[in-house]
Every structure is written in structure tokens, then in C-alpha cells.
């Protein structure tokens, strides 16, 4: 009996917390067959919402990948004053409520904010437009790549990089040929988490979005307007993307590294 105790608790918890809600959405979406689902998804508003979400993700993920790797390299390999502070600061978005992030962007770029004049003077609208939504997504998904890469960089150490230098490789060559291949799984994992966060972000984006919409905002909108089919369909698609990405990662990852 004891032998199965831990498993029962662990798997039971997963079933209640994760599998239950997911299957509920699945069931509700297809309760009346496939066609309401398809209609809800191909609806102009839904398509527009997904376009926005994908566009925001397509900008935020590469940005956070490049800067996440750069931050991780700086934290692990370089010495500079306040390094410990920076290391902790990268984690801030994990701890901070997205609503607070949204509000701070609102204050920063809104009328009277520090950056208002800079952009308004050039006729560029940040708030209630895509730029602010991208900035909000970048902010909340900032830590993931750096968080994954930092421990891997520590673990591999810098001897391989030193060896590459003595063999005549420049810093840039060493990064592409030695460092990046060594941390690739951490980067991929970080990218997946960043993508998932960007696709699913609601709180920060909702404050700065104005009349713009995204997939998650559309779910809320549909739900409030009693368009339950639409809310379920978009939710399911978001959940399906998340599951697909996880499965693809599991399949792609080499055996010895999953162990």
C-alpha cells in the first residue's frame, strides 16, 4: 500500500489540477460537434485576435531569446559590480503580478509619463496599441531563457571555451561553435516557456491593450458576451498549442539528456 501512496497522491493531484480542467474544456468545446468549434475559430474576430497574439509572440520571443542569452552570459561569465543584484532582478517579472506590470507601463507611456513626450512628439502611439502589448509581453516573459541558460552555463564551465580560444577561435566563433551548442537545450526550453507565456499573457496586456485584442483577451470578451462557443474554441486552441509544444520537445530531446 505504502509503495503506491506517493504515486496516488502525485498523479491524483495532477489529474484534479491539470487534467480535469483541460478535459472539461475539450468536452465543452465539442459538446455540439465539430462545426460550432470551427465556426467560432474562423470568425473574423477570433482570427484577428490570434493574428495579434502571434505577431506579439513573434516579436517578443526572439528579443527575449537574444537578450536572455546575453544576460545569462554576463551573469555567469563576466565580472561587474552589482552582479548579484542583476541576477536577482532578472527574476522580478516572475514575482511581480502582471497587472502591476501593465499599470506601470500605463503610467510610463501614458499622458504625463516619462516616455509620453518622446514618442508622442514623433506621432508614435505606444499605449493602447501593439507596441505597448509587445513591451508588456516582453516584460512578463523576460526571465525564462536566462533562468534556463544560467545553470547550464555554470555546469559546463568555461574550460571548453578556453580550449577553443587556445585553438585559435575568436570570441564570436567560440560562442557559435562551442557555447551555443552546449546550451542549446536550455535555450530551446527557455524559448518554449517564453512562447507559452507570451501566448497566454492576459493581465499586463489587458491593461495596455485599449480596444486591441489578443487570443486571451478574446476569450474574456466572448465569455462576457455569452459567446461561450467562441471562448471554449479559443481556449482549446491555446491549450492544444501548449500541449503540442511540450510533446514536440519531449520527442526532440535526445534520450541521454532527458534522463
Amino acid at each position, binding site marked *: 500500500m505504502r509503495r503506491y501512496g506517493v504515486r496516488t497522491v502525485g498523479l491524483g493531484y495532477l489529474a484534479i489540477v491539470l487534467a480535469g480542467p483541460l478535459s472539461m474544456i475539450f468536452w465543452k468545446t465539442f459538446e455540439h460537434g465539430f462545426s460550432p468549434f470551427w465556426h467560432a475559430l474562423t470568425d473574423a474576430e477570433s482570427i484577428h485576435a490570434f493574428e495579434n497574439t502571434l505577431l506579439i509572440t513573434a516579436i517578443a520571443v526572439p528579443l527575449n531569446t537574444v537578450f536572455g542569452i546575453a544576460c545569462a552570459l554576463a551573469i555567469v561569465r563576466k565580472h561587474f559590480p552589482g552582479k548579484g543584484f542583476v541576477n536577482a532582478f532578472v527574476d522580478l517579472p516572475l514575482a511581480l503580478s502582471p497587472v502591476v506590470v501593465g499599470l506601470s507601463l500605463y503610467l510610463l507611456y501614458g499622458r504625463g509619463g516619462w516616455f509620453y513626450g518622446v514618442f508622442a512628439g514623433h506621432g508614435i502611439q505606444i499605449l493602447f496599441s501593439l507596441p505597448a502589448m509587445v513591451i508588456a509581453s516582453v516584460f512578463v516573459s523576460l526571465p525564462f531563457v536566462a533562468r534556463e541558460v544560467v545553470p547550464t552555463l555554470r555546469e559546463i564551465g568555461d574550460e571548453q571555451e578556453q*580550449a*577553443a580560444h587556445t585553438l*585559435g577561435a575568436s570570441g564570436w566563433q567560440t560562442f557559435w561553435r562551442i557555447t551555443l551548442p552546449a546550451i542549446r537545450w536550455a535555450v530551446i526550453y527557455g524559448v518554449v516557456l517564453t512562447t507559452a507565456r507570451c501566448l497566454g499573457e492576459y493581465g499586463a496586456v489587458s491593461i495596455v491593450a485599449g480596444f486591441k485584442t489578443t487570443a486571451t483577451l478574446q476569450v474574456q470578451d466572448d465569455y462576457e458576451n455569452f459567446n461561450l462557443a467562441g471562448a471554449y474554441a479559443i481556449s482549446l486552441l491555446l491549450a492544444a498549442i501548449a500541449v503540442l509544444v511540450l510533446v514536440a520537445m519531449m520527442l526532440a530531446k535526445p534520450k541521454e539528456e532527458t534522463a
Partner: protein
Amino acid sequence: MSISVRNVTKRFGDYVALDDVSLDVETGSLTALLGPSGGGKSTLLRVIAGLEQPDAGEVSISDEDVTSHTPQQRGVGFVFQHYAAFKHMTVWDNVAFGLKIRKRPRTEIRERVGKLLELVQLDGFAKRYPAQLSGGQRQRMGLARALAVDPKVLLLDEPFGALDARVRKELRAWLRRLHDETHTTTVIVTHDQEEAMEVADQVVLMNGGRIEQVGGPRELYEHPTNAFVMSFVGPVNRVGDAFIRPHDVELALEPNGSTQEAMVERVVHLGFEVRAELVRDDGERLTAQLSRDEARELELEAGQIVYVRPTRQTVFS
């Protein structure tokens, strides 16, 4: 190519790793940097390679001042204690790395890597990954990788330190043979005096960031300049101010004018060599080293009374 180190000092915070060190390494020689951990030997090697910047002093390789050059520009081969294998590359790609960086023609790379793998006896392992090799094989790969770019000097940082004793002995002998074939100027760091004595033409004994003595293995053993060198390069008995090697302690069953009485406390049989631990009647402890035949002739056993006399002893002023 020769290496010249002039008045190099290196500090890590308050800790002085190298204290005004100067050293010359001749072209084609094999030099060992020997000493206890923290003696500065690895730091000196890394300064030569450019992996550490000295706070003061100069480093020249083949009469060119390279102090301000990066490791990339120095043309040295470096072998790391923990291999520093490129884990995501096959053995072949590891060895070919330096040549690919130098954009050598493909046929040349193929030929050179093949030849090197043969030299380090890894010809059958080209397609394997480092994780599929034993420690000794990984280190031979590390050597081939360093030699591939035809380095001016080959620098090895405790290359056999992570290997077990038997493999270490094999590789040591093999390194010496390799050096006799290639004649690449080589500097090896080791804390093992036997290893240093066995492979090197010149031994540099370092301690506390300074060089204690430089010389051939025999010179260091027979003419140590101070007590530290004397006790580091071999076992030694200290009796008052005198240092006596265990093989310079003569045992006899009968006293004569110059002997002193001692009791055998323990006899250790190490194959050819027999070690006798003695306590003299004045309370001084010393160890004597005898051949198996000598021990048998004396019928040495614990509790026995013998008469001892040093045949040679050294006193440092």
C-alpha cells in the same frame, strides 16, 4: 620554440599566486613545473598560454613578446586536466576544430586529423563522442586536438591528474615517446615528483608562488639547494639539522665505531624494496630503505635491535 618568462607577478585579490617569477624553457625541451597545490605552477602555465593576464612582467614565445596577445593569437596547444572535450562533437571534429577555424583545405584537414588520431592510437574512435571514451582516451584526444594546429609550444595542465594510477603511468611513458618523435617544446604541470622526474629534461620546482630550483631530475635529487627541494623530490629523514635519504641509511647487526643503536619498529615489504621504520636509542625516528636481498640477509623483523649509520647526509646552512 623557446619560452621566456620575465619577472611575472600575478595576484588574485590578496593572494599572490606568482611572485616575480622568471624562467627560460629551451626549444624542443620537455619541462615539468612541479610543486604542491597552490604553488603557482598552473597559474604560470596559464600565464604562458594567455589564459591569465599577469599583473607585472613579460612572456615571450620564440623571442616574440606575447604579453599583450590573446590565447587565440599565441599559437599554443593547451591540454586541460579535465579534458575540456567539446562534448557535442565527435572525436574527429574535436581534433579538426583548430584546423577548421584556420580554414585549412578539406583534404589537408582529413589527412592531418587521420594522422594525429593514429599517433594517439584513436584511429578506430573517430566517430565516437567524448562521453563514449575512457578518461585516458579523452586525454589522448585532447593532446591530438592541441597538436593539430602545429603549436609553437605544448602546455599540459596536470594532464593525467584525473586518471587512475596505472593509466597515468602508461600515458606518461607514451607522452615522453611522443615528445621524442615530435620535439615540440613542452611544459607539463604536475604535483607528482615521480611523474616530473620520469618525463622531463628540466624540472622547475615551485612553492608559494616562487621558483625554488630549476634543474635536471638528477641534479634536483642529488644537489637540492634547500630543505624544501630536498624533501619534495623524494622521501627524507630529518635528524637534527641533517637530511638523510632512506636509501642512505645503512643497517648492520653488529656495532662499529660510527653506528648508533636502533630498534626496528615495523618492516614493510613493497616487492623489490623493503622499508624499515626505526627508533634510535636517542629517540630519533628514521626510515631505512633496503633491497629485498639486504633485508633477508639481516633477517629484519619488528622488535629487533640493529645498528644504523648514515652513508650520506645533507645539512643546509
